[in-house]
């Protein structure tokens, strides 16, 4: 046994004092949040501020015959009513989307989805604005609408986007039909088809990842304040990517970018909802520029659910070819992607289907081919990454359901099939058939740990016994075991393939040590609850030896923070976290020179020790970072500029690939369709762990959102395009009562290319959780030959499965 020397004990104490990486540091943010002193957009109150509210279309598809604002304008307290006619001369009735399309800010000739924005009423308070929206008289002529994406490209389908009907080449290549947006394909079609033609076993299933919505508890909102004298615009808003918003506002308004101050204050959850630019932001800006007073816009919940940013709506025909022994040889996927009325997906520019090509998952599948067709329908636009990297939940759902379907077809255990096909630890870095280079992984170890912990073999035995009891009529309960083994792809991304509006997807950190040794650091990302103020400080604390409590983290003010692409797709830790470490190391290098000067030794004679540089072999001769900071301002070495700060714009060399093994045990009452999650076990490998408490919290939250999506949450439309259930009455948000108890676990496989080896974790549980729940439900019914049961698995739909299978006699 190693004996602890006094130096070791001292070092351990000093390390603990830093509260650096790896410790469960309590959150800095909570001091204000628990006292109701957060600072969210709607909390902002400015002198003279007025309120905007939208007139929205009751129709899914209609021609606008006329808009009469007379009655609304006559209402006392109403200041202005904006329509497309007012915005058109400014060129602002349409705005560019991140996906290379345009989107109506206020509808001009037609409305294309229910609740589309038609007019913006500005009044002196929110009640009057709301009253006035009912006094705007709009005459519509209803048109036939398209709700089913499979009908979008029928020869006689009504043309939805008349504004681009003659533009047969879109941002992502040729369009096959006026309602077609793009076709995107990747992989080797001929080789894939050849393998399928000769395969011993093939499976083919239509897997629908249904339309849903991220619905953070705070809706989207903004306050725009234009100073006519200075010609400067300040825009506060719920922005996951405030710098990108500033650039977009500059591009579409013509205001110089340095005269635009975008501020994202505290944000009440984002989950992808707050990446895009919305009509409300634009109208608050235009309103303030026109009126010269601050204009606030706050979405209500119905507007949020029915207009800003749906997620998913991927209809995935998924096929696998394999040997009889269960070795997967090829994968073939066709996706019909329903993008709604405008292509407003928030993906990196070159990726119209996001990173859907991660759909070969955690398996060594040598050959694959993927085609994605995007189409317009009369639904809200969006297609955001709802708590996942771009389209990764869809991709993982496809592969993780497909391997289960294959396992069932060849009569093999689903866990065994996975183990048989996993990419092996020694194959990393692994080049996938659809173009990715997986940086690292150890799937077998994670899967075996998970199986042992959950007692997989015992569970299968119990299930067999219960199935037999069910067949004998002794129980009405079905037991399902859900498995998912996911590989995420996060941390977009390298400039060679990732940009947004032409801006490479780097991220940034600026760190400044003050003379007394405390620190302010700013990043280009923006927390929406992930606890950045806490965790970035931990990275810096470990790198620089300054206690985390002496480090202030600031994000969201585009005047002071370095440019960054924002927080979504789990990119904060992989990209801005890396920038933070690199900037800190620049400072440390300078600090070492200063320390050498102070100690009158050569730099090479020094070594780093927790919070100080010390002379090798002479531990009592040292200078702490705090002392060095003072010296940097007081007496820097000759020929060295004073000060101690650094900035880094980090261009990631690759994405990171977190992974995990999830297991769910579920009991379903066949007569009521009520499904109870008995156990849910989540093992995550996100590389180096910065704050285990926060990681666990992220996993809990992601699993809960996965549970919601798989088990009930849905944005549904009737055949005339009425959006059903756009309120918390109907849209399923689990309460504490339905939400299962979560068990978490981990393995650690650091990312080889990330400065601290971290991979990102916020979205993994969602990505892995959705298929795990769906697999549990499907597994419960599998022995009754139910076929693939589509999500969401609410009690009504599961009851209908029982009906279909004749189980209710």
């Amino acid at each position: 046994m190693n004996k602890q020397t006094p130096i070791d004990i001292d070092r351990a104490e000093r390390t603990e004092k830093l509260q650096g990486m790896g410790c469960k540091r309590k959150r800095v943010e909570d001091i204000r949040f628990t006292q109701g002193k957060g600072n969210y957009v709607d909390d902002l109150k400015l002198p003279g501020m007025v309120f905007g509210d939208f007139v929205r279309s009751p129709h899914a598809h209609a021609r606008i015959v006329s808009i009469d604002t007379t009655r609304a304008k006559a209402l006392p307290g109403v200041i202005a009513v904006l329509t497309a006619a007012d915005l058109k001369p400014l060129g602002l009735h349409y705005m560019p989307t991140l996906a290379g399309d345009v989107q109506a800010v206020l509808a001009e000739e037609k409305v294309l989805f229910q609740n589309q924005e038609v007019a913006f009423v500005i009044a002196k308070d929110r009640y009057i604005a709301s009253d006035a929206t009912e006094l705007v008289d709009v005459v519509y002529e209803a048109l036939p609408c398209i709700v089913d994406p499979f009908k979008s490209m029928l020869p006689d389908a009504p043309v939805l986007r008349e504004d681009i009907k003659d533009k047969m080449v879109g941002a992502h290549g040729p369009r096959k039909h006026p309602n077609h947006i793009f076709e995107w394909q990747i992989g080797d079609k001929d080789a894939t088809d050849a393998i399928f033609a000769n395969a011993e076993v093939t499976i083919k299933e239509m897997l629908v990842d249904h339309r849903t919505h991220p619905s953070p508890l705070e809706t989207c909102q903004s306050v725009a304040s234009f100073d006519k004298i200075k010609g400067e615009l300040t825009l506060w808003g719920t922005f996951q990517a405030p710098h990108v918003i500033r650039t977009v506002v500059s591009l579409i308004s013509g205001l110089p970018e340095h005269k635009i101050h975008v501020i994202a204050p505290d944000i009440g959850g984002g989950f992808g909802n707050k990446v895009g630019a919305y009509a409300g932001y634009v109208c608050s800006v235009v309103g303030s520029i026109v009126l010269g007073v601050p204009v606030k816009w706050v979405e209500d919940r119905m507007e949020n659910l029915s207009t800003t940013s749906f997620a998913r709506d991927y209809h995935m025909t998924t096929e696998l070819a394999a040997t009889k022994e269960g070795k997967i040889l090829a994968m073939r996927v066709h996706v019909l992607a329903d993008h709604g009325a405008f292509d407003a997906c928030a993906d990196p520019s070159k990726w119209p289907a996001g990173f859907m090509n991660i759909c070969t998952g955690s398996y060594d599948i040598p050959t694959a081919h993927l085609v994605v067709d995007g189409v317009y329908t009369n639904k809200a636009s969006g297609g955001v990454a709802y708590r996942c990297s771009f389209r990764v939940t869809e991709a993982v759902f496809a592969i993780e359901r497909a391997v289960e379907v294959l396992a069932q077809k060849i009569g093999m255990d689903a866990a065994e099939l996975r183990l048989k096909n996993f990419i092996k630890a020694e194959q990393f870095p692994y080049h996938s058939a659809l173009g990715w280079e997986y940086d690292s992984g150890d799937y077998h170890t994670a899967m075996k740990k998970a199986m042992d912990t959950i007692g997989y073999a015992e569970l299968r035995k119990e299930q067999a016994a219960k199935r037999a009891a069910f067949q004998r009529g002794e129980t009405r309960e079905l037991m399902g075991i859900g498995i998912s083994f996911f590989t995420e792809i996060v941390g977009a991304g390298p400039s060679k393939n990732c940009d947004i509006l032409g801006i490479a997807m780097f991220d940034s950190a600026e760190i400044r040590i003050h003379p007394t040794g405390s620190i302010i650091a700013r990043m280009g990302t923006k927390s929406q609850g992930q606890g950045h103020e806490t965790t970035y400080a931990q990275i810096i604390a470990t790198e620089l030896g300054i206690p985390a409590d002496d480090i202030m983290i600031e994000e969201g003010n585009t005047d002071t923070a370095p440019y960054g692409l924002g927080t979504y797709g789990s990119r904060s830790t992989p990209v801005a976290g890396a920038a933070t470490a690199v900037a800190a190391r620049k400072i440390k290098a300078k600090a070492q020179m200063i320390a050498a000067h102070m100690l009158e030794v050569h730099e090479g004679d020094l070594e780093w020790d927790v919070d100080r540089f010390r002379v090798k072999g002479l531990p009592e001769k040292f200078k702490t970072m705090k002392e060095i900071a003072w010296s940097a301002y007081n007496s820097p070495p000759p020929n060295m500029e004073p000060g101690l700060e650094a900035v880094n714009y980090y261009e990631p060399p690759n994405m990171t690939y977190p992974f995990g093994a999830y297991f769910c045990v579920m009991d379903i009452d066949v007569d009521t369709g009520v499904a109870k999650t008995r156990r849910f076990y989540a093992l995550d490998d996100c590389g180096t762990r910065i704050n285990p408490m926060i990681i666990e919290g992220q996993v809990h939250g992601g699993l809960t959102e996965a549970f919601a999506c798989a088990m009930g949450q849905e944005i549904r439309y009737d055949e005339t395009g009425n959006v059903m259930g756009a309120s918390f009455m109907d849209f399923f948000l689990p309460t504490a009562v339905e939400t299962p108890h979560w068990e978490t676990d981990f393995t650690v496989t650091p990312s080889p290319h990330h400065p601290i080896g971290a991979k990102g974790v916020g979205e993994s549980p969602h990505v892995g959780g959705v298929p795990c729940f769906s697999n549990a439900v499907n597994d419960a019914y599998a022995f009754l030959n139910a076929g693939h049961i589509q999500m969401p698995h609410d009690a009504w739909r599961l009851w209908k499965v029982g009906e279909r299978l004749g189980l209710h006699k």
Partner: protein
Amino acid sequence: MAKTHITLSINGNEVEALVEPRTLLIHFLREQQNLTGAHIGCDTGHCGACTVEIDGMSVKSCMTFAVQAQGAHITTIEGVANPDGTLSALQEGFRMMHGLQCGYCTPGMILRAHRLLQENPTPSEEEIRFGIAGNLCRCTGYVNIVKAIQYAAAKINGTPFLEAAQ
């Protein structure tokens, strides 16, 4: 619109105000009283982000008119900390157990938990889960909120808090 005169007590302070009959209590608190701790998450009574305490009851202030608060004693999150300014047991519990992330549901959640512990000082996990079912959280998955409330209950009762082993 004609205004109505109301007097009430908010966090122990006497308040007099003129409000429109249709003004919702949540807007009165947030916009007229500058108490922005209570939030609006749905305006339909489902999310509980707007929860405040009125005369010993948890009330969703988006479902209540300000005029209905005439003569009432209201506690909002701004009135929850200990008199010396330190965090109350519940506030501390939420921080220690990581019972919040974005913080948007937190003021309502803490006010609701406060009433729950008044009515049941030693709730089981199941009682806590039922007790906060009117308050939605999108971020935490509730496990740590349950622990936060158990932490606070133990602290208030002077009993040891044993975090349930996973």
